[in-house]
């Protein structure tokens, strides 16, 4: 029996270059470990490795009667889209990884997912939420970030409950795939409320000077400002709103607020800002490998020296989704696993993982607010949570 098994192993190795059984399962990823997106890219790099280590420690992936370990082959794309595309081709065709994990940022995902589709290798990514990623009819790409167009929905719901109700909104957004999707969706959502858009401005992703927009907002007497952009811009925005003494009743941002070094860079000025996260490290989110989200956050902080946020949690979910799919399909055949991914439905530290028909997950955003330096959830999927501090006191009165 044993001899037969060895013979079978040898034959499959000879025929397929990689033994079908009895070999570690390789996950390939090209992540922004250096370059201008590195400070978010690192969440993915560290989380992928962390998840794989945890799963291996628990015995690995169960296929048939054996358990296989996971191996991560990660490359640094230096925040260069063209390089990341080339690296994914290398991972697929030279390193012959079994499956792909995605990079951060919709721009990267848009380009890299084309490789997954071209070579028919499933890719699960937690970095790209723009609508375009999922509107091309691709079959091999799945995403664990909720759709961009829904990002401000919870915030708008919260605003509907605040007193005195905000009436006018300024909508500012960067001109990249993700933020434009957010803005389009938000515009529609605002249209369904009684609030009006007073300022609707698209700005260049590389902008560091918001003075003109802030001056315009100030002159229009706007109640609420919604900004869809990148951390660096939002940081500049908040600082410049202080120096120009712009005092809306509320301002909310798509990114930045949940991350610790963002709040550290702003110090006191971060107070009262609203943000959103599809994930809070709550013990209610149970996980097969990490116990629960709170434990995960503590261990992550201990191992890597910084707090995880939804990027990291989403990355962990990607790895776990692959494991569940491989186990359900009982094979590493790309087509079978792809079908299994489309059918997964399980709970993880990130939330419930289940992909819709186009491959996207659906997770409501929790609105958070910075109160006295701490991140406080104020509005979640089940409605109001802690009390929101509203309206925001003027800069001079804090």
């Amino acid at each position, binding site marked *: 029996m044993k001899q037969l098994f060895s013979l079978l192993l040898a034959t499959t190795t000879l025929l397929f270059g990689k033994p079908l059984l009895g070999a570690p399962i390789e996950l390939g990823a090209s992540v922004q*470990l250096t370059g201008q997106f590195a400070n978010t890219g690192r969440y993915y790099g560290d989380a992928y490795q962390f998840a794989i280590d945890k799963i291996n420690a628990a015995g690995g992936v169960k296929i048939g009667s054996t358990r296989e370990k996971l191996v991560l082959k990660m490359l640094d794309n230096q925040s260069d889209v063209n390089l990341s595309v080339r*690296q994914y081709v290398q991972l697929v065709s030279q390193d012959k990884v079994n499956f792909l994990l995605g990079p951060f940022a919709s721009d990267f995902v848009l380009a890299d997912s*084309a490789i997954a589709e071209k070579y028919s290798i499933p890719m699960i990514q937690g970095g790209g939420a723009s609508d375009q990623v999922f509107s091309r009819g691709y079959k091999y790409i799945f995403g664990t970030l909720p759709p961009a167009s829904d990002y401000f929905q919870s915030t708008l719901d919260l605003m509907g409950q605040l007193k005195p109700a905000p009436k006018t909104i300024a909508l500012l957004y960067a001109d990249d795939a993700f933020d*434009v999707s957010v803005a389009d969706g938000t515009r529609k959502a605002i249209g369904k409320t009684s609030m009006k858009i007073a300022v609707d401005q698209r700005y260049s992703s590389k902008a560091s000077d918001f003075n003109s927009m802030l001056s315009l907002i100030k002159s229009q007497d706007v109640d609420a400002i919604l900004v869809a952009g990148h951390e660096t811009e939002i940081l500049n925005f908040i600082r410049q709103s202080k120096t120009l003494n712009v005092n809306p009743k509320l301002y909310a941002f798509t990114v930045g607020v949940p991350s610790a070094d963002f709040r550290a860079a702003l110090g006191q000025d971060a107070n009262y800002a609203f943000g959103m996260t599809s994930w809070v490290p709550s013990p209610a989110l149970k996980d097969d490998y990490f116990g629960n989200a709170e434990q995960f956050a503590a261990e992550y902080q201990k191992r890597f020296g910084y707090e995880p946020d939804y990027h990291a949690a989403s990355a962990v979910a990607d790895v776990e989704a692959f494991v569940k799919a491989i186990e359900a399909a009982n094979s590493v055949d790309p087509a079978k696993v792809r079908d299994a991914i489309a059918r997964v439905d399980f709970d993880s530290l990130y939330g419930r993982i289940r992909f819709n028909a186009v491959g996207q997950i659906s997770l409501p955003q929790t609105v958070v607010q910075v109160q006295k330096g701490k991140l406080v959830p104020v509005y979640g999927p089940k409605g109001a949570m802690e009390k929101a501090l509203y309206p925001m006191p003027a800069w001079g009165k804090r």
Partner: protein
Amino acid sequence: MKLASTLALSVVVVGVLATVPWWGSAVLVQFGINALILATLAQSWNIIGGYTGYPSFGNSVFYGLGGYGVAVGMVQFQLPFAAGLALGVFLAVLFAFLLGLPVLRLRGHYFAIATLGLAEVMTAIVSNLEIAGRNIGLILPLLKGDTLFFELSLALLVITTMTVAWISRSRFGFGLIAIRENEEAAAVMGVNTTLYKILGFALCSIFAAIAGGIHAYWITYLDPTSAFDITLNVKMIIMAVFGGPGTIFGPVLGAFVLSAISEVLATKVTSLAGIFFGLVIVAAIVFMPRGLADLVRRFRQQGWRYFQANIQAHRV
């Protein structure tokens, strides 16, 4: 005699390269396509920078226009690839004539900066054009299989190099070289400097545009930053300068050598790849500013003193 042997060798090399998609790994093919496109860009720069002596930092505009021609043509107008390429070339040549005319009146570093400015302006303009998908860019239809792209890139490089070879022996080429050496004297001798410069610029634009079009279709994704990539400008210049500007094979050699080293670093020691490029530039400019071609030729006579001689000639 030398011509015949060079020709024979080239034919053999091209023939072997053409078969790569059938026996090479997918990574090799991919590397090949990148290197071939970069070599074409370096060679096209050679025409205006190496032969004519006008260091253009704007070839990325032609590259980007070629890419957008293909993208807009295929995505917005459902044209076939060849038609998209034609559109891209048309846009690039138009740009070369319209903007070449005022900009080619400038000299030396003013010309370089003007072309750099043009590259920035085009990026900014295209990122505001609705038809080009603004800053988000366009997603092209997916074509499985790299063989077509490899062969096209190879053919493009061959044609570009043959053009450069023709230039080096033609009256047109001598005119360009005369402009490089002493423009006033060339004008006095009867060379129509304006016409020649514009034609050189336009020739560059054609090859750069086709290269851009092929690249866009291959990557299936195009946005203003990657289409008009400013660092691409410097890369193609470095490759041409490293290989030997004003020679026929220099830029090709430079492109392949630098691409190979860069690729190895990017895939094996990824953290060093970024700094490698910068260090190579600094070292090359200090020790071998006239390129590999010159190095190969002079090293035989001078040996290691070649490097020292270069420094002595250029230091203060």
